[in-house]
């Protein structure tokens, strides 16, 4: 039977990709962030997942405002990155898992989550950077990808409560999959940051701690806010915590052990974190 082996969460800001390209991982500015990853890499090397279900948000690479799905599930055999417009190199392509994608899609819609399905989907730095951090220097990605995109761009956004529920429905769908894959769940983005407007540069370490302290043991605690309240608390881009909340839901009710946790301010304009939870 397929097994959910754990959850890997990380910030994904493009600046991390720039630091990797320049080889800045050990500089005083970047080291406190990159120091969060050796334990994650060691655990992944041991745990050997076969496929990652990744909750993230598109940043204007695949989706435009002409069609903006609230929840979109990839069902492609491959996923490419592409030029995102600001001069970073194009990241490696990903191999998909269409059979598991379609199983997820069937189960989610039967479970009354009316998701959008994508047989073509570009994935941006929100997927590529977490992979680069987990498997630095890999010639090709060692595991397959199922991307799930959550709209964090155009309001109304789905509520934290709905994102947790979507994640839990993904968990039920994964439980009913007949394969033998070892499945890693990922949530990317955040933590608190705001790029736009007079409040640009805003962060909220207290709210970030609240999220990090409660995500594993009491994810319901994060669902007491509306999406708008999360934007007020975490900043306009801090709403990417929705990806973490959904990913937490996909880990289900298994007891979770925290393998590593790191929090650092600032990288780029962002309060950054990484977290690894092992499912027992």
């Amino acid at each position, binding site marked *: 039977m397929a097994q959910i082996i754990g959850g890997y969460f990380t910030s994904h800001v493009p600046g991390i990709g720039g630091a990797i390209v320049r080889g800045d991982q050990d500089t005083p500015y970047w080291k406190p962030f990159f120091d969060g990853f050796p334990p994650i890499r060691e655990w992944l090397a041991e745990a050997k997942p076969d496929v990652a279900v990744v909750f993230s948000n598109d940043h204007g690479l695949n989706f435009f405002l002409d069609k903006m799905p609230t929840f979109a599930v990839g069902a492609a055999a491959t996923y490419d990155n*592409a030029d995102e417009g600001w001069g970073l190199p194009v990241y490696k392509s990903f191999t998909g898992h269409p059979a598991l994608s379609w199983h997820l899609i069937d189960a989610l819609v039967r479970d009354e989550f009316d998701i959008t399905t994508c047989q073509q989907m570009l994935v941006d730095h929100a997927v590529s950077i977490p992979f680069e951090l987990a498997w630095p220097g890999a010639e090709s990605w060692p595991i397959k990808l199922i991307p799930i995109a959550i709209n964090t761009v155009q309001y109304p956004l789905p509520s934290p409560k709905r994102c947790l529920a979507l994640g839990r429905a993904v968990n039920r769908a994964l439980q009913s999959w007949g394969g033998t894959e070892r499945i890693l769940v990922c949530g990317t983005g955040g933590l608190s940051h705001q790029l736009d407007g*007079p409040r640009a540069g805003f962060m909220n370490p207290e709210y970030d701690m609240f999220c990090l302290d409660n995500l594993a043991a009491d994810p319901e605690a994060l669902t007491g806010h509306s999406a708008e309240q999360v934007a007020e608390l975490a900043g*306009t881009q801090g709403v990417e915590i929705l990806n973490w909340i959904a990913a937490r839901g996909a880990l289900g009710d298994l007891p979770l052990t925290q393998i590593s946790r790191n929090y650092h301010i600032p990288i*780029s304009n962002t309060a950054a974190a990484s977290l690894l939870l092992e499912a027992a």
Partner: protein
Amino acid sequence: MTPDPCYADESAAIRRTIPLFDGHRAARGYALNAMCFSFNDAANRAAFRADEDAYCARFALTEQQRKAVADRDVLAMLEAGGNVYYLAKLAGILGLGVQDLGALQTGMSLDAFKAMLTAWAEKIPNGKHA
């Protein structure tokens, strides 16, 4: 337009005050954001650089949007319905990083803005870096 009573209360108030990019702004900013979305393509970035006026005309920017772009006025671009996820691609063409954008929008010097970012670390409860 009358606000929808379902979210008229607190959520609507937060959308206005931060402000958040909702349907009103997405409709107002459509042309500007469409132009910025096109900058995922290097050929389009080159076309903008070569003839900014012609490129903006191709996307039928409103007068307000065209002026905001010409003035390199980020707050005015946002006011004209620009969304930062798309505007970031224009900022790339203009050679502005996210910290330059932050300095421009807050009226701070770049150094003061960077110092402000770093200072948030002092607010980490009980020094919990992990």
